């Protein structure tokens, strides 16, 4: 489906549009032509951000900016640390607090108005949730921010995270996790449509920068059709439409998982492809219900050798025969408790019964923790997406470094999340070269094999 960029006649008169390489990458700033979100195709098909409000959780949005003023949702904007309903950025003399305004622009800046650039989902609204201009964050502020006005805000976008000093294992705290779970469960319960995509593109030219861009869809009345997507639908669409494109890494090669889906440790399933996503979403049928199964657990302490690896195996039937059996995987969690003389030198890999190997933890040279370790830490992988979880899972734990270290693994619990019936069998295939076509074929073949096996067994048992 690759087309020359100049075949896509997106004419925007916004002066900075041509610099937005993640929208249309023409090789600007030493970039790679074509390595972008393929938003142009989605725009051409008539999809924009109309009807969607994105909460920019950051340091405020400059709602006086001419490129944002018309799409600022003041009613849904707030600052929970100073209880201010008018959270204008607290500008410093070096413009440090203009981060939120830039993020808002990347998402929602007005198109074709001769000002600045163009938002990836232009025509959308942005709400400013000011929270990052304080010396310290708290759990209650994060939780309050991410649960602010869910009936108005469709997406919560955060372009920030724990202090990235290579040592911390910080993340959302207790209240924030609770707020997230409450939000998703409520939404799932209401079958409302909430989703959020985060795309990370690193640009290696002189304008190197790391970007998060949120792309989201819901009932696009503008485009004339209504999507009935759940959060999990969005995840399946992401897996099936993301592209390898020209992403390449010498160390981490692209591999295929047990059902043929191509993935990479660094790039996941690849670059988001907005055009392919909206086309597939148009006739998408909600995926079957998800189930959760504890595949197995090892609770006895096992020493981690200073050299070589501790290799543990867990054989699971994935709760076969029980109400909550899982047959087609989505997320897999390895809940691990481990302590060692140097946490940063730990390396953990897990391999599925279908032979897909995931790096759960790689070396973190600056992490010299020898006290806390990982306590029931839910490591997670999606590399085994669509695979059959039944069989033997292998966990390998070792140290990577020249100094001898010691450690003990106290727990490994395998959590399997996925569906019981094939998620793609009811989907309409339009492109026979697509991952959807390949996955659907796999599913049909497996369903057929299993049906034949069942009938043979019943015949044999009768005889």
């Amino acid at each position, binding site marked *: 489906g690759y087309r020359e960029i100049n075949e896509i006649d997106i004419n925007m008169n916004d002066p900075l549009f041509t610099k937005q390489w993640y929208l249309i990458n023409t090789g600007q700033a030493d970039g790679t032509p074509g390595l972008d979100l393929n938003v142009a195709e989605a725009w051409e098909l008539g999809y924009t951000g109309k009807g969607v409000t994105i909460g920019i959780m*950051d*340091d405020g949005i400059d709602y006086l900016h001419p490129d944002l003023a018309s799409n600022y949702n003041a009613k849904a904007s707030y600052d*929970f*640390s100073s*209880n201010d309903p008018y959270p204008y950025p607290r500008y410093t003399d070096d413009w440090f607090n203009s*981060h939120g305004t830039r993020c808002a622009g990347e998402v929602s800046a007005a198109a074709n108005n001769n000002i600045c650039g163009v938002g990836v989902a232009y025509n959308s609204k942005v709400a400013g949730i000011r929270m*990052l201009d*304080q*010396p*310290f*964050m*708290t*759990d*209650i*502020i994060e*939780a*309050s921010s991410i*649960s602010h006005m*869910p009936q108005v805000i469709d997406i919560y976008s955060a*372009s*920030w*995270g*724990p*202090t*990235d000093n290579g040592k*911390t294992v*910080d993340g959302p*705290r207790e*209240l924030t996790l*609770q*707020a997230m779970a*409450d*939000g998703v469960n409520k939404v799932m319960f209401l079958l409302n449509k909430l989703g959020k995509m985060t795309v990370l593109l690193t640009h290696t030219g002189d304008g190197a920068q*790391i970007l*998060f861009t949120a792309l989201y869809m819901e009932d696009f009345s503008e485009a004339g059709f209504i999507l009935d997507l759940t959060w999990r639908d969005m995840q399946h669409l992401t897996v099936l439409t993301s592209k390898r494109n020209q992403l390449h890494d010498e160390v981490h090669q692209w591999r295929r998982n047990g059902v043929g889906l191509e993935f990479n440790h660094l790039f996941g399933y690849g670059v988001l492809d907005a055009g392919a996503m909206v086309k597939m979403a148009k006739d998408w049928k909600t995926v079957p219900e998800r189930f959760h199964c504890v595949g197995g657990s090892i609770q006895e302490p096992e020493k981690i050798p200073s050299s070589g690896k501790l290799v543990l195996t867990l054989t699971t039937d994935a709760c076969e025969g029980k109400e909550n059996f899982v047959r087609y995987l989505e997320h897999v969690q390895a809940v691990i408790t481990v302590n060692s003389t140097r946490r940063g030198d730990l390396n953990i890999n897990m391999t599925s019964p279908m032979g897909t190997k995931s790096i759960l933890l790689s070396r973190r040279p600056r992490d010299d923790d020898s006290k806390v370790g990982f306590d029931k830490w839910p490591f997670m992988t999606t590399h085994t997406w669509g695979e059959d979880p039944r069989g033997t899972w292998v966990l390998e734990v070792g140290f990577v470094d020249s100094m001898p270290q010691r450690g003990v693994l106290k727990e490994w619990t395998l959590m399997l999340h996925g569906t019981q019936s094939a998620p793609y069998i009811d989907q309409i295939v339009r492109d026979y070269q697509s991952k959807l076509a390949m996955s659907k074929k796999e599913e049909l073949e497996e369903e057929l094999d299993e049906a034949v096996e069942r009938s043979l067994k019943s015949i044999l048992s009768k005889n």
Partner: protein
Amino acid sequence: EIAVYTNHFLVELHRGGEPEAKQLAAEYGFSGVRKLPFIDAGYHFYHNGISRARRRRSLQHKLHLEKDPRIKKAVQQEGFGRKKR
């Protein structure tokens, strides 16, 4: 990392709604209170009279709150770093 304590508190009541939470906040000198949408009877108390970041916990406020029979739990919020990306 050395803990930093802020002037924000998570307060959970045994029972009662926002009026009771507001009354409690006023009784104990807090500047404001807001209902947390994701916790039953969970409230965000904030106190402008307490320093926004200090090394030591405000035990006095925490113990006062927790001694009140109407209050199930009071947690002074710790501060931590967040980095813009």
